[in-house]
């Protein structure tokens, strides 16, 4: 229920609270962002561009985008499958499955990285076999993708599960009685009903995948120009006191995040009517 905006004292309270919220957001979120941009542009535009044009940095940007481009679609597919499974069927161990889906949110990303090292690292369970067959997982692209998938897995599933629970199975059952087959039901009923939540989950997942540091740091090996993603590149630059370059990279990373956010807002604004209709029914 939406409360009716009431008398003046209440309105004053609302304004006060809003001010606190705005101040807090400004302090915690906007200030650091501005600092990043300020530090990056301190030496003027020339050093900024030079830092960004550095081959290692370009490689890092490319790698970051590539990892996200592989990890996010996979997580979208697995997320839909998991949400489908959890919301459409009753089975033993459902609670356990839900807990496992949440696990990446609760464990430290460093552990998520270490897990892959234990499995695929030189001393790991499959290390000897992998070396024998000349397959590179850790300190290479597959390791980065695996670590990213693990850390960002819950985003899509967590967006979809409450919505799909809420919508129930009636429409899918109705489609079945009207003669629709499995994939028809999925593509014509289920997917259109969840598309906004799915998109939202994918965007969050993308933002997180691009910014992931901990898990990726463990499996990366920090080979410059090869296995350094943008967040890792920033750390290296910063540790070498190349602060303008570090902040230049940081501002690019922040820019990628802002683009994601903008995309989400544009979509929400553009399809506001349809979103509302979806929720109301």
């Amino acid at each position, binding site marked *: 229920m939406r409360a009716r905006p009431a008398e003046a004292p209440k309105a004053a309270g609302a304004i006060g609270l809003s001010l606190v919220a705005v101040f807090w957001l400004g302090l915690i979120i906007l200030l650091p962002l501005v600092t990043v941009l300020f530090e990056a542009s301190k030496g003027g535009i020339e050093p900024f561009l030079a830092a960004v044009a550095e081959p290692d940095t370009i490689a890092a940007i490319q790698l970051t985008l590539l990892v996200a481009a592989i990890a996010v679609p996979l997580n979208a597919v697995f997320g839909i499958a998991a949400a489908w499974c959890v919301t459409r069927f009753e089975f033993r161990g459902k609670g356990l499955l839900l807990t496992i889906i949440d696990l990446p949110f609760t464990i430290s990303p460093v552990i998520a990285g270490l897990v892959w090292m234990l499995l695929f690292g030189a001393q790991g369970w499959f290390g000897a076999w992998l070396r024998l067959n000349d397959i590179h997982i850790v300190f290479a692209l597959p390791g980065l993708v695996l670590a990213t998938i693990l850390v960002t897995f819950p985003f899509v599933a967590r967006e979809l599960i409450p919505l799909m629970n809420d919508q*129930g199975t009636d*429409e899918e*059952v109705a489609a*079945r*009685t009207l*003669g629709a*087959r499995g994939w028809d039901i999925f593509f014509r009923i289920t997917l259109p009903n969840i598309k906004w939540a799915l998109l939202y989950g994918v965007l969050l997942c993308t933002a997180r995948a691009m910014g992931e540091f901990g898990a990726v740091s463990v499996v990366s090996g920090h080979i410059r120009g090869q296995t350094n993603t943008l967040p890792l590149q920033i750390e290296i630059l910063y540790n070498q006191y190349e602060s303008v370059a570090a902040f230049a990279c940081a501002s690019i990373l922040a820019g990628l995040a802002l683009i994601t956010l903008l995309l989400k807002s544009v979509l929400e604004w553009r399809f506001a009517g349809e979103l509302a209709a979806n929720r109301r029914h």
Partner: protein
Amino acid sequence: MSLTVSNITKTFTKFAALSNVTFEAEPGEFLALLGPSGSGKTTLLRLLAGLDQPDSGAIAFDGEDFLQLNARERRIGMVFQSYALFRHMTVADNIAFGLTVRPGKERPSKSQIKAKVDSLLKLIQLEDLGKRFPAQLSGGQRQRVALARALAIEPRILLLDEPFGALDALVRKDLRRWLRRIHDETGVTTVFVTHDQEEALDLADRVVVLKEGRIEQIGKPLELYRDPSSAFVFEFLGANNQAAGTLRGSSVDFGGFSVPAIVKGAADGTAVARFRPFDTQVSRSGPGFPVKVLSVLPAGANLRLELQGADGQVYETQHAHDQETSDLKAGDTVNLLPTKVYVFA
């Protein structure tokens, strides 16, 4: 062309949802499954639709074994209690769904589908709302769209789950007549589930009364009403009163006066007599048990009374507005005489 359901049993983890259910629906018949919640009527509907499988028993339509067919192959039109309209599609697309989803060679052409949708929109009297979304319709309109969507596939049987459950009383009555008319026009065999006895008696050709997963009685509305086979059916079909008496042959003796009884398998002796509110008379000096008038409800075609016996038992009665009853008021003492009672085993 008829639907036969024989010896259907369905058990969920612990309890039997249906046991040994057997009935038939004639071609073009309008059949009601009536029962309180938990009587298994919706489970039965889901079995007919192929959304669940029975543990044992058979379902056949027109000689064809339905249990061998899945929900899609049975070509059954189902209207859900929640309507289950596709929220992201327009009304027209909702109605067309069963046709557009068909595989290539079975699918009618675009113009055929459009013609079909138009004729159905006309049938449900929503010609101008084809482009709306379900969220923009009223409850009654959604209900009609759900029906049109089910009819679009030219179903062999139409199944309706509590079709009027979510509507307010006025719309409900209106839609009831309308649904009956649609049924008479299309002639499709229809089975509908309801817990509302008035709806079932009003609308159906025959009614199947269910209780705790078993069939209690099957019959035409008037048969059920005149000749209920059990106390459950008698009570479920309308307001009723109970009084203790002694059954002797075909009348019940209430100590001082006796009343003709319709006896269903009960033996002579102490018995519970049941009677309808309108099978009664009240008088100031005639025979009957003394009761106190609790309240007088004069509004409507009949005068309604709430009475209380010496033992505290409350009775509800209905009478024509006449001399005898015109000056009754709360607190009066009168004699209540049932004119016809039922005694069940």
